[in-house]
């Protein structure tokens, strides 16, 4: 009550006096000064009680604005104006820029019912919010927001998210080691089982790679849990982290990977009769482990992407895994290595063809548009990987077509060159693994597009009414809202009108009201809605249940930046 009160105009005061004289005649008498004083006070208190409730003031309503709500302007306006249904005095006038910063508007003039506000700066392109709060004649503060855009409605500014670099490095390193274990270890075991004549060369290297993989696999899983929770590295051992990790698809990669690593060890150290069989099963396991999780496997169509990831992974394991045993064999026992080299070079062409073909198709599915190669982190990593691959293929081709034949023939000088070249290939392969492990942190353009289009939805449930509200896409910018309304006990609610009211008090944005329309499918919609900023908004639905009954329900909703 008190907060509403405002000094009335002269007209109001005089009307009060008239009514006082008419209804409460106080006889002025010099003798009764004290009576007069206390009497006057009593009289005025009474008057106030009697008359003030009778004063019917009005709320000011916004009648017109310049720029108009939702307008798109070619250039920055020099001033704004708000026209109300009655004179007002401004309390707070703020311009919220597209990046969310606030510009207080302190320079304004009142011209009758119009409030002219100077714009102190040249506005950059994007959606701005002119947020106003005025006090109207009845003393009630009222507020609202006018949205307008310069150039075009803006996408939201990107909110910087804190990155836990220690955790990221750990995840990346564990992933790299897991790749090394699966691709170099299992692939190496396969090469030793199927291609090498003398299996001792490279056996130790392969065993070490497998052990790295066996350690890295469970560590990766734990780190995945940490990342899922956004928890720091220090909480690695807490049960909730592992519980979270076990709920991700990555657990299948780790499980199948561990089986593959175990089979590869069996093929290295187990009975000779099982060697080839377990090595093959292990290689199969590598493909399956990689296909079980990750960006590429998650892409649609799954019937295509998962087999492609499987083939891609198995082919890398075959190629990369053979390199170390082959190089070591060439160094230590050139004579024995000749058979190894001959078998490898016979098999490698179709394998590389499968590798390249599956990689190209997956890249097309993931990147979608060529521009995304440059514009997204995922695309840039892919370009880096392609550059490394080009180098690797060149080296491999030189090895295959110029060095292999003389080396097989027994040319020791060429064998040494081939060995060095294989060493460099190994390093490039590791670098490629490192790049591929980096993809862990960069959602592919395909996923970015899907994520950006995802709506945000909330459910509001009160005794009188409930609503399912979704805002599509669920990020700041141009969106559409869809509302499904029911009674509090899940019955149908045939509302006469629904108004969506959005406000963001922490950014100084007063309520943005938009009436909803009824497209006829049982929902209520607000199209052409612009949400100027990401973050937590307060959304309210004013549901007109009948002519005389309005239900207001509200809840917070989180609007993404992208």
């Amino acid at each position: 009550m008190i907060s509403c009160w405002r000094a009335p105009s002269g007209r109001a005061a005089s009307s009060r006096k008239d009514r006082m004289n008419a209804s409460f005649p106080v006889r002025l008498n010099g003798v009764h000064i004290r009576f007069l004083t206390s009497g006057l006070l009593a009289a005025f208190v009474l008057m106030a009680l009697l008359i003030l409730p009778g004063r019917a003031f009005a709320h000011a309503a916004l009648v017109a604005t310049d720029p108009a709500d939702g307008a798109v302007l070619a250039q920055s306006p020099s001033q704004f104006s708000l026209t109300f249904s009655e004179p007002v005095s401004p309390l707070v006038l703020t311009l919220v820029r597209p990046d969310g910063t606030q510009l207080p508007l302190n320079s304004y003039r009142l011209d009758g019912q119009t409030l002219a506000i100077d714009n102190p700066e040249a506005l950059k392109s994007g959606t701005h919010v002119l947020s106003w709060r005025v006090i109207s004649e009845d003393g009630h503060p009222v507020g609202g927001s006018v949205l307008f855009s310069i150039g075009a409605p803006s996408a939201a500014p990107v909110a910087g998210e804190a990155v836990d670099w220690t955790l990221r490095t750990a995840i990346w390193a564990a992933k790299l080691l897991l790749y090394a274990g699966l691709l170099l270890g299992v692939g190496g075991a396969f090469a030793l089982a199927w291609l090498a004549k003398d299996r001792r060369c490279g056996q130790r290297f392969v065993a070490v790679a497998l052990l790295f993989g066996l350690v890295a696999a469970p560590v990766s899983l734990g780190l995945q849990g940490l990342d899922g929770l956004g928890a720091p590295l220090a909480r690695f051992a807490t049960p909730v982290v592992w519980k979270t990790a076990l709920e991700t698809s990555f657990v299948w990669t780790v499980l199948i990977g561990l089986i593959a690593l175990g089979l590869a060890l069996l093929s290295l150290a187990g009975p000779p009769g099982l060697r080839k069989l377990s090595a093959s099963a292990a290689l199969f396991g590598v493909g399956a482990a990689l296909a079980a999780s990750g960006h590429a496997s998650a892409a649609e169509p799954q019937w295509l992407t998962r087999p492609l990831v499987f083939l891609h992974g198995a082919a890398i394991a075959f190629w990369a895994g053979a390199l170390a045993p082959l190089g070591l064999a060439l160094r230590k026992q050139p004579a024995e290595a000749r058979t190894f080299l001959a078998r490898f070079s016979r098999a490698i062409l179709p394998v590389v063809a499968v590798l390249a073909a599956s990689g190209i198709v997956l890249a097309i599915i993931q990147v979608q548009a060529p521009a995304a190669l440059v514009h997204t982190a995922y695309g840039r990593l892919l370009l880096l990987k392609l550059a490394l691959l080009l180098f690797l293929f060149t080296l491999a081709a030189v090895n295959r077509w110029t060095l292999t034949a003389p080396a097989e023939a027994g040319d020791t000088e060429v064998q040494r060159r081939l060995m060095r070249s294989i060493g460099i290939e190994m390093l490039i392969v590791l670098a490629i693994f490192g790049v591929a492990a980096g993809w862990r942190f960069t959602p592919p353009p395909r996923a970015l597009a899907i994520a950006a289009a995802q709506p945000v939805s909330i459910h509001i449930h009160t005794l009188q009414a409930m609503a399912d509200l979704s805002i599509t896409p669920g990020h700041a910018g141009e969106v559409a809202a869809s509302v499904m309304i029911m009674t509090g006990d899940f019955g149908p609610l045939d509302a006469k009108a629904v108004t969506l009211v959005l406000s963001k008090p922490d950014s100084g944005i007063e309520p943005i009201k938009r009436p909803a329309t009824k497209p006829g499918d049982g929902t209520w919609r607000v199209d052409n809605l612009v949400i100027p900023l990401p973050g937590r908004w307060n959304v309210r639905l004013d549901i007109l249940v009948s002519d005389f009954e309005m239900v207001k329900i509200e809840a917070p909703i989180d609007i993404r930046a992208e």
Partner: protein
Amino acid sequence: MKKYLLAAGALLALGTNAAFAHITLETQEAPVGSTYKAVLRVPHGCEGKATTALRVQIPEGVISVKPMPKPGWTLQTKKGKYEKSYQLYGETLTTGVKEVDWSGGNLPDEFYDEFVFRASLAADLPAGQMLYFPVVQECGDATDRWIEIPAAGQDEDALETPAPGIKLLPKK
């Protein structure tokens, strides 16, 4: 001016239940079991537009409603069943006016007018509580709905478009 300030100060100190805004009832208190003359005060149109119709919902327990005709306005009532029966002067009432409509008029935004009806407040209405008369104000294609009723514990001032109401006093 000093006198005015005194009054204002007294008002602030007392924190009375004054309703400042909107469509309101002139008499804001009435004992239950009495006859009540409701004078609805319309101080302005809808966002500057002239008022063309006023519709009042009669709450349960307000019986034997008789609206006062207004020159230039078409008066209509909507009748319906009460939730229970009421005794009035030995008569049992089960149906009566549930809504009063004045329509077809023209009250410019800059003018003030009053709309009147008379009714009996049932004796079993809860004394001490508020009784609200939701009002729909129509101004051509614009509509203001003075229909908000504060939830338990909610400050009436928090409402943007409160329904006019009266405080029920104990039976005399």
